[in-house]
């Protein structure tokens, strides 16, 4: 009887623990699934997602992915912000999150990609003054991302995007952008995310960019 009691008790605890990690996976899957959806493709949508990822991150504290996604959504919010005065504050918030992800996960190609995006986002505040500082900084993070994982399609996506939106006088080029984006598509085709909630965003965006060039 006693044994039965203990096993019952134990089962209860296990169910609770599993529920916890299942809850994490379910919540993450649900939120990650919304990343590439058009309904969240706005500053407000990104803010909402970033808020949710931050809540998950702060509740879990040991998972790097919620921090990573919070940073990704925050930096997108910065890109989409209509009021340029908000860009730095949002970029700072994104930076705080990605640094926490970095502390938990260590150097990682996906994290470097976000760092590169944060540097790029800051240029918009004052391109003339900030371009010379943050342009190269963003490029350096991207180079780091490439070294950490040359198969990461997002490296080439960001490269292509940067080439596309940089004025030709400052080293931008449509043909080079197209090459990078096409390479990125090849990498996407071969890319296998580590899990259902690991970073796997951006393919649809690349296709959209390529369609714009043609």
């Amino acid at each position, binding site marked *: *009887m006693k044994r039965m*009691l203990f096993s*019952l*008790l134990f*089962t*209860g*605890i296990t*169910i*609770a623990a599993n*529920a916890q990690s299942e*809850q994490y996976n379910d*919540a993450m899957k649900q939120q990650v699934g919304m990343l590439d959806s058009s309904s969240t493709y706005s500053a*407000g949508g990104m*803010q*909402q997602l970033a*808020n*949710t990822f*931050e*809540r*998950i991150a*702060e*509740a879990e504290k040991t998972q790097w992915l919620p921090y990573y996604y919070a940073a990704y959504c925050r930096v997108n919010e910065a890109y989409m912000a209509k*009021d*340029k*005065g*908000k860009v730095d*504050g*949002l970029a700072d*918030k994104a930076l705080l999150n990605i640094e926490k992800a970095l502390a938990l996960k260590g150097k990682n190609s996906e994290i470097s990609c976000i760092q590169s995006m944060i540097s790029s986002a800051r240029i918009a505040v*004052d391109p*003339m*003054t900030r*371009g*010379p*500082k943050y*342009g*190269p*900084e963003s490029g*350096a993070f991207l180079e780091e991302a490439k070294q950490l994982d040359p198969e990461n399609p997002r490296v080439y996506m960001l490269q292509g995007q940067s080439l596309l939106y940089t*004025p*030709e*006088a*400052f*080293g931008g080029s449509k043909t080079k952008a197209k090459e990078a984006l096409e390479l990125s598509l090849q990498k996407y085709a071969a890319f296998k995310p580590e899990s259902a909630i690991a970073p796997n965003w951006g393919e649809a965006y690349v296709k959209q960019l390529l369609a714009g060039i043609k």
Partner: protein
Amino acid sequence: MFKPFATLIFLAFIPLLTQAQTTVSGRVTSAKKKPLAGVNIAIAGTYDGATTAADGSFSFTTTVKGERLLTASLMGYQTLEIKTDLATATQLNLILKESVNELKMVTISAGSFEASDEKKNTVLKPLDIVTTAGANADIVSALKTLPGAQQVGEKEGLFVRGGTGYETQTFIDGMLVRNPFTSGMPDFAARGRFSPFLFKGTTFSSGGYSAQYGQGLSSALVLESTDLPDRSSYSLGIGSVGPSVGVDILSKNKKQAYGFEMDYFNLSPYFALVKQQQKPTIAPQGFNSSGNYRLKTSKTGMLKIFVNATWNRFGFQGESLEYPGFNEDFELENKYLYTNVSYRENLGKGWKLNLGTSFSTNQDRIYMDTIGKSPAPTRINARQDLSQFRLMVTRMLGRFSMLRIGSEYQYADERSRFNQYDIDYVDSYSATFAEADVYFTPRFVGRLGARYEYTSLLRASNIAPRASLAYKLDDKSQVAFAYGEFYQKPEQQYLRMQHDLAFMRATHYIASYQRISEFYTLRGEVFYKKYHDLVKTVPGLNNNGTGYAKGAELFWRDRKSIKNVDYWLSYSYLDTKRDYLNYPFEVQPDFAARHTATLVYKHYIPAVQLNVGATYSFATGRPYYDPNRPESEFMKDRTRNLNTLSLNLNYLTTVGKAFTVFVFTMSNVLGNDQEYGFRYSSDKLRRRMVGPMAPRFFYLGMFMSFGIDRRQEVIDRQ
């Protein structure tokens, strides 16, 4: 037996059974009752929460129960944490307080124009200083487009609010710079010695400045040298006046950097093309080199060493005013060395330390002669050495307020030889200052300070109080007031002759209003300045001079209304009179114009990658004295109004692997006469207009950079 068992089973399944849901809802507003959207509402330690809607409302369900910590966070606001029983957590009214950040805080603003990349809310960026047409990458020329500065073309320096060029002092990393301008001809303004690219911050104070600085009656130009570069770079340039080369290497660990820059200029090819008013006997030529080393000694510590060495010479021959039909020779050779070593560190517990030392030596050899006439040629050999040390400690008081205490010592050795006569002197100058920035509230700041100075040469000391107040009216606008006493030693040329002169003194009162939004800046200032103890040369050297200046200034900048265009407009009204030097009574001096206005226009044309810039300056005529008039009509005459238009064009492209920019600049495009004043012969029969050497100056160049993209920098150099 059965009962406890059932209880145990029940307890074991509590985690599953408690999944019953509670609703949490409410609304978030700011302290001013404005609904806040996008606020992240969370129950600490759970995933549960929501983002507030446009009307500030939120509602979500949660499975947790009991008293929990609810947090509400939004960028720009202090995060709110409240303990609440979730069972009753409906229709919550949450109020978020704005967080205090740099943008919302008031800054000391009366009298100063600051250009900085690091600080927000500044009127200018360092780039603005150097992308101004007509400035040719000269800091002082660019600052002349701001209100308060006069359009004086015949003497170097900033003539600010009725003050002479001598009344503006230049400081690099807190230390006074002796000879900040290159040596030039009499009646022709010379360029500043230091490239704007050496500095990350530039503050032009047209009055009421901090007790940290002294020895400028009117104005302080405060320059802050750059820290580590972002990347290594190399650059090459060739222009119509000569070549340049530069290297800046950042170490792999990004802890230290070193670099050098060199350029050589020679104007003979240019003078072959463009006729000058006077005949060049030695075409202006020179060599300029600088080196620097910067070391990050710790997370907050920085050591900087900067050395600059220049050599230049020129000679001109022009018609003698004194002896018609005869020519006059003027030749000059200049050697200059400047060093600056500075160190800063956070000592912890709110203490900061700044240490600096600087040494400069300047040597001019001048030869003047009226050919074929006695007296014999004049030879002047002058040398000025200045050594100095500076120490400042800063103590943070609370979150924003701070106290600064510092001390400095300068040893000046001034030698000059006029033919066979030597007139030398040395001066030990020491100063101590204390100043506190006190934030009564984040919107209201006061700066109170005083400075004590002593010079061994004059055997005189002074105590100069300074005070500044600023109050922020709303997010964008603020009002400010400043008062201060300012002392300065008489000019070296008078001190040389007579050592028992006294300090000159000026009292400033300033009131200002400014409104800075993302794309627009509006600023207005009124001032009153009283001069005491100015140097007079008549009957003998004395300190009996007096004067005043009062006026109103306006600055407007707009970066939005016209696409790809950034422009600013400055206007200064100046009413000033002074009795100094040989003046018979108080009168508007010859360097002061009543109305001055400047328009700076910058247009980028992306389709052709072309930057077009223009600067238009206007000033009403300045007084001059025609000695044929009686003394009672001293300074009654006026020169013509000044009108000048300067242009620059930059074309960006790529040559091979190097980013390249082609540059064309032209000053006084319309060729308007520029009449700065008149010189009279001693018999009063003849006069000569004081004006530029040629009506226009143009420049063509190409710059290439490898590594970091420095093209922007090249554009900015124009």
